[in-house]
Each structure stands twice: as structure tokens, then as C-alpha cells.
């Protein structure tokens, strides 16, 4: 049967083009790969090669014709042994082809209206049940620093699963740049506690590849500032591959390290990446405050089958908190904690800012304002249920974060409350953020750039109109 030669699409956006020139005449023999005509698209002139071999039986669209629609019949190829009469009865009048073996893809289904999945925690009411479950109570505790809690979490998970390993700069012999991995090399050896060269993009890609094969790497970034060199692998490789593979390629990996401002290390070493990573589907983003948060959430992150970005804070490493002794202690990712109950205003914070919020709450209490302080613990998926329930009680909300205001976590919280609790609000949601400048070095300027308890008190009183 003669082969229909159709106007080809030669770029992702082409819908029509000009048939500039025929390089073969009717009756010419054609081999697969021969250029048969030239086609001008909106971007370039392209050569159109034959796929099948045979003889050019008929030219349907003459050269010089403009605006030839993609997929319309432009010529007919006779296969080996076929005579011109084989074309009898074929519609060779040109125009859009009616009878080709290929059918154009069906029109896409209704465009999605919701910006987020119906069952996503970002969606109104989603995850409400999970968010409102009471946290398990423990009765026996030990005081641990955040540093020790992180180390214990890794050690326990490494004992439990031989596929878990730690790699990063100075994690082994040096015992950790911030001593978080102290003792791990001695217990687990060089095979599982791996000192890397200073090569963030390389070792992040390497660990992600190992996770694709089913191992469970913990990648330590000395600080998340250096992970900027590796962010392509965190997003394009780790976060997106499950989706791009139709669910085949899991990536059980933890990216952890200190995030946010430390002290006097200036702009390149003092940045909060919470909103950067929380923007991206395919990642979970956790940011603990206390030692209990650190241990329970890191254990959950290591067990999670998805890539988890785990944002610690250097200023917290040495602080001590009660940590449950229960060997099965683990905290659920996606669940916030109410650190202080209150009825007048909700203060939402994460990481080091939880302490700032609690200090502000104490000051506010002296002034007769009872603040409810929510420790987010997880940034993505955000525990919106806990935030909304609190705002429905207090009718006012202040968000506190170290990061910059534009498109920050506070922006997301404000929008979420507007979408889900607008009628409960008695005042606009207020944000307390890092000042919108690169972090300065001078001690006085650095202090001015970061949220303070006083700033939070002022914002809380503002939304209470006091």
C-alpha cells in the first residue's frame, strides 16, 4: 500500500510551516534517510528525511506553499513493486489527512483546577485527622544536647539497618565539623562513615545514585549554604525521579546539616533555606528545635522512603533538652507541636525561632496576653490542621522565621490561614522575618537583621490591637 508522506512537526511548538523546496521529483527512487524536501518552520529551515524506501509517486503540496498544517498530506511514496495505479482511490487532494494510521493524541482531559492534590496536606482540610492526633506521652527522660540527640538517632538507625550510612566532609576521622558524628566512625567503620573530599555536587549526586539502588544514605552538609553547589541533585535528581519514573525509582535519602544564621559568619554562611526546599514537591522538609525533635524526627527521616531535607541549626547543637528514653521513640514527620497553650494569639515558629517565640510568649503573659506557640517541626508537609485549629481559637496569628520575608514560610502560613480560616481572623496575619538584606558581619548589624523576642512581642500586640 502506498505510504502517505505527511507534513512533519519539526519542533515542539510547530503547528504549520512552509514547504520550501522538493529535492526529489515524482518518479525518483528514495532510500530511507534521503532528504526529500526542505521545510521552513518559525525557527529554521529543516531537511525532511524519508523513513521508508520506495519511489516518490506523487507530490501533493507543491514547493513554495506556505502555512501547510502539520500532519496534512504532502506526498505519496510507492513501495517496492507498486505502480502509480496503486494510488487510485486515495484522497490526494491535500489538506488535513483524514485517513492516516496514526491518530493524533486525544485532547487532554480537563485541566486540573486545584493547584495541589486533593489528598495533599496543602489542601483545605487535608491531613486534619493526622494533624490532630495527640502525641504519645513518655515518662522517662534523659537530658541530651541536640548534637548528642542527632548522633544517637543516626547510631540507632545504623545499628538497625545495614543499608544506612553517613557521608560528608569531616564526618569520620575529624568526628564531625560540629562534632555531630562523634564516635560513629569508631562504631561503624570506614565503610559506613565516609569522609568525602570537598565536593558537594559530586557526593550529593553519588549518594542520590546509591539511594536509587536502594541504599539509605545520610548526607551531611557542613552547612546548608554549601548545599547550594548540590541543589541540582537534591531537586532534579532526588526529588523528581520518583514522579518521572512513574513510581519506580524511590530515593530514600536524608540531606542534613546546619541551616540559618550561626554567629558572625556573614552573608555566605548565614541563610535559611526552609522556603527554598519547601517549595518543591517530592521533598519532605524537617526543621527541629529541641533535642527530642532532633532525635525523633531524624529517626523518622532516615526510615522515610522519600528524600528528606533536614535543617538543623548550629546555635542549637549545644543546647540540652529532655529526650524520652523509650528505644522506640520516634516523631511523625508532618506533625507540629503546641509548645505552649494560649488563647489570645497564635505564634508559629520553627527551629531556633521556637525559643524566640517562647521568650516572647513569656513577656506577653506578663502583659496579660496568652500566646499559643506552635513548633512546626516539619515545614513540608505543613501541619496546617494544627495551625488552623489554633487560629480558630485565638483569631490572631504571628509567624516567626529567620529567613527573608519574600515568599517565605510566613507567606505560606498567611495564605493558608486566609484560605482556610478567613472568617475566624480578627486581624491580618503578621510576619516577623529576617531583614531583607544579606547577613551583615558587624555584631550590632547582625543582631538587627534577625528576629528578636521584642520584635515578636510587638507584632503579637499589634495583631491584638494593644
Amino acid at each position, binding site marked *: 500500500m502506498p505510504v502517505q508522506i505527511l507534513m512533519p512537526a519539526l519542533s515542539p511548538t510547530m503547528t504549520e510551516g512552509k514547504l520550501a523546496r522538493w529535492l526529489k521529483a515524482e518518479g525518483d527512487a528514495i532510500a530511507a534517510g534521503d532528504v526529500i524536501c526542505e521545510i521552513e518552520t518559525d525557527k529554521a529551515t529543516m531537511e525532511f528525511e524519508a523513513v521508508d524506501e520506495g519511489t516518490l509517486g506523487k507530490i501533493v503540496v507543491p514547493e513554495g506553499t506556505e502555512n501547510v498544517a502539520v500532519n496534512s498530506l504532502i506526498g505519496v511514496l510507492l513501495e517496492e513493486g507498486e505502480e502509480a495505479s496503486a494510488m487510485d482511490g486515495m484522497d490526494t487532494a491535500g489538506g488535513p489527512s483524514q485517513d492516516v494510521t496514526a491518530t493524533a*493524541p486525544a485532547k487532554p482531559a480537563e485541566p486540573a483546577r486545584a493547584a495541589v492534590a486533593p489528598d495533599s496536606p496543602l489542601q483545605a482540610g487535608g491531613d486534619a485527622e493526622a494533624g490532630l492526633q495527640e502525641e504519645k506521652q513518655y515518662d522517662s527522660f534523659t537530658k541530651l544536647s541536640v548534637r548528642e540527640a542527632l548522633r544517637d538517632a543516626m547510631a540507632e538507625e545504623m545499628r538497625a539497618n545495614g543499608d544506612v550510612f553517613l557521608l560528608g566532609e569531616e564526618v569520620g576521622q575529624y568526628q564531625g565539623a560540629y562534632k555531630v558524628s562523634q564516635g560513629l566512625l569508631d562504631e561503624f567503620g570506614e565503610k559506613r562513615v565516609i569522609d568525602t573530599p570537598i565536593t558537594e555536587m559530586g557526593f550529593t549526586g553519588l549518594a542520590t545514585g546509591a539511594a*536509587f539502588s536502594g541504599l539509605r544514605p545520610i548526607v551531611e552538609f557542613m552547612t546548608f549554604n554549601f548545599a547550594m553547589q548540590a541543589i541540582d541533585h537534591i531537586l532534579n535528581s532526588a526529588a523528581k525521579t520518583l514522579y518521572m519514573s512513574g*513510581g519506580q525509582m524511590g530515593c530514600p535519602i536524608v540531606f542534613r546539616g546546619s541551616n540559618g544564621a550561626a554567629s558572625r559568619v556573614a552573608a555566605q554562611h548565614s541563610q535559611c533555606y526552609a522556603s527554598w526546599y519547601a517549595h518543591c514537591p517530592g521533598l519532605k522538609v524537617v526543621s527541629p528545635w529541641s533535642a527530642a525533635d532532633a532525635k525523633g524526627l531524624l529517626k523518622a527521616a532516615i526510615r522515610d522512603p522519600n528524600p528528606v531535607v533536614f535543617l538543623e541549626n548550629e546555635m542549637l547543637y549545644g543546647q540540652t533538652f529532655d529526650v524520652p528514653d523509650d528505644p522506640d521513640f520516634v516523631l511523625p514527620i508532618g506533625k507540629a507541636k503546641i509548645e505552649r497553650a494560649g488563647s489570645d494569639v497564635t505564634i508559629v515558629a520553627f527551629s531556633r525561632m521556637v525559643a524566640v517565640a517562647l521568650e516572647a510568649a513569656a513577656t506577653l503573659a506578663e502583659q496579660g496576653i496568652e500566646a499559643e506557640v506552635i513548633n512546626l517541626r516539619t515545614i513540608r508537609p505543613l501541619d496546617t490542621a494544627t495551625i488552623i485549629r489554633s487560629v480558630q481559637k485565638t483569631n490572631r496569628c504571628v509567624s516567626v522565621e529567620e529567613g527573608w520575608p519574600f515568599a517565605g514560610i510566613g507567606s505560606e502560613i498567611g495564605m493558608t490561614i486566609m484560605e482556610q480560616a478567613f472568617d475566624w481572623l480578627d486581624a491580618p496575619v503578621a510576619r516577623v522575618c529576617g531583614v531583607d538584606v544579606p547577613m551583615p558581619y558587624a555584631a550590632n548589624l547582625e543582631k538587627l537583621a534577625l528576629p528578636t523576642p521584642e520584635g515578636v512581642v510587638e507584632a503579637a500586640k499589634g495583631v491584638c490591637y494593644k
Partner: protein
Amino acid sequence: MAATRRKAKSAAAPTADDLKAFYHDMLLIRRFEEKAGQLYGMGLIGGFCHLYIGQEAVVVGLQALAKPGDSVITSYRDHGHMLATGMDPKGVMAELTGRRDGYSRGKGGSMHMFSKEKGFYGGHGIVGAQVPLGTGLGFAHKYRGDDGVCFVYLGDGAINQGQVYESFNMAALWKLPVVYVIENNKYGMGTSVERASATKDLSKRGESFAIAGLAINGMDVIAVKTDAEDAVDRARSGEGPAVLELKTYRYRGHSMSDPAKYRSKEEVSKMRSENDPIDHLRQKLIADGILDEAALKEIDKEIKATVTEAAEYAQNSPEPDPAELYTDVLLDA
């Protein structure tokens, strides 16, 4: 270990059955890609589509050295690698058309396909990203002690990415079982190696890391298999990575929408007429009396049928269910 450039010591010559299989596999890739180009022209394949035509001998020769359990990873010019690792042409073509029976259920497309079952880890769209990822697959082979090797394919364009050298360093430092296969097809999109690389001998790019390198004629499938064998064996036996430069050529543009004005028609047609890997093997099969014209025609026919079936399957498979928009973002914890 000093960086050396040595030929394979005692690589076994391919048998007649090997040669028949090479011919079949290369022709399958060629015909599959021609069909993909045709479907692209009909608007059935969208977006970017990078064809492997001309480079078939590289992946077919290299994968002849792979063992079950090995892993493979490459860039976005990946259709040939998928077919060479034994993935089903129907599933690959259905992914190209964005349908639910594609390997990624229509959510990955030409550049993003995977088959854990066949040890194929993609299909990566960011130039050079597959190099540390593949180094990590090699790391996992060593961690598990499973005797596997990772074949990491990259182009002459990717070779100038910094992460390639970060990977070389770690692979050499930790003696990872990785074979880096540089497919030098002379052009990174429209920029020739001459215009992009300060040093043109890409086989030497691992020398700073004491990784042995070897340049191989990538238009000759027998040379590919024979010359690469020693490097693969050494990687497998724990001696560390290798860098192989496969000198090859792509006949088509960088992608379907590339008018290829950066090279002359004469250059392309000379390569096609004088160096075509499939034509050469075909002549050898006849000259050595392994297959006659009739038998070769039979193989051609069989492959044509396979590709036609794949194309029909890819057009008849439905588009993904709209609910698929929301699935596969995260796994249940």
C-alpha cells in the same frame, strides 16, 4: 596505578552468534529511532526527542560486556541504551508518545525512563548529572559486594561539566567499579569538540586522577566490545574505574528541532556512507559466510515488524488517567 593507555590483553573475539546479535540489536535501535523520528514528525511525540542514529555500535558493543546485576545510566539521548539493556520497545515507544503503558506511565517522556528490573537507571535531562549518580550506583555495587559494574554513558558535551571530575576523583579514590563511556559524537548540541574543549583527546580526561583511559572506534561494534573488555574486567575485579572515549557520530540533529547548520552535509554523508556501523557489520556477516542476503532480509523484516508493533502500541495506549497527575510524588512512609 599510573595512568596508562593499553589495549585489551586477551579479549575474546566475538563469536558468530555474538555478531548476529550485534547486528540485530543495532538495527533494532536504528529502525526504532527512525520510527520515533517519524512519529515526532506526525506530532505524536512531543517536547525534546534526541535520536541515537549513528551511535548504535557504542551501546551494543559495551552492553555485550555487561552481566546480570550490572547497572547502566545515561543522559537524555537514551533510547538506544534502553533497547540495549533489554527494555521492551513497546514500553519505550509508549513513553515517547506520553501514554499510560509507557515505562514511566507517560510522566517522564523521552529523556526520563527507567527500569530497575533491567538495571537501567535513566534517562537524565541535566547534562552531566548522570555521572555522579552513576558513580553512586558503582558505590552501591561495592557497598553490597555484589560484583556489579556501573556503565556510565556521557557525551563530549558533558565532559566539560565540573561534576564529572568530582566523580572521577571519588571513583578513583575509592576504587569504585565504574566504567565511564564518553560517547564523542563530535558535537555538544551545535558546538564542536574543537570549539569547546581545551584538550581534544577526551580519553585522557581521567589522567589527573590516575584513571586509565582508552580511545576506541565507536563506529565498529567488534572493536568496541573487544577493546573495552579489559577495562570492564578490571573495574569488576576491584581495580577501579576506567575512562573510555568512544569516537562516534550522530547522523541526526541534536534534537528533532535542530537544523544542524554547524556541520556540512558532506561531513554527514561521508560518515554515513563510509563508516556506518550497521552497513559494515552487514558486509562482514556476508563476507564471513555467517548470514546470507536472505537471512539478513529476514532479520530486517522481523525488526520492522517489532518496531511497527511498538509504534501501534504506542499510539493505541490511552493517555494517563487525569488522576495520575497527583500520584508518585511521594511514597507512603
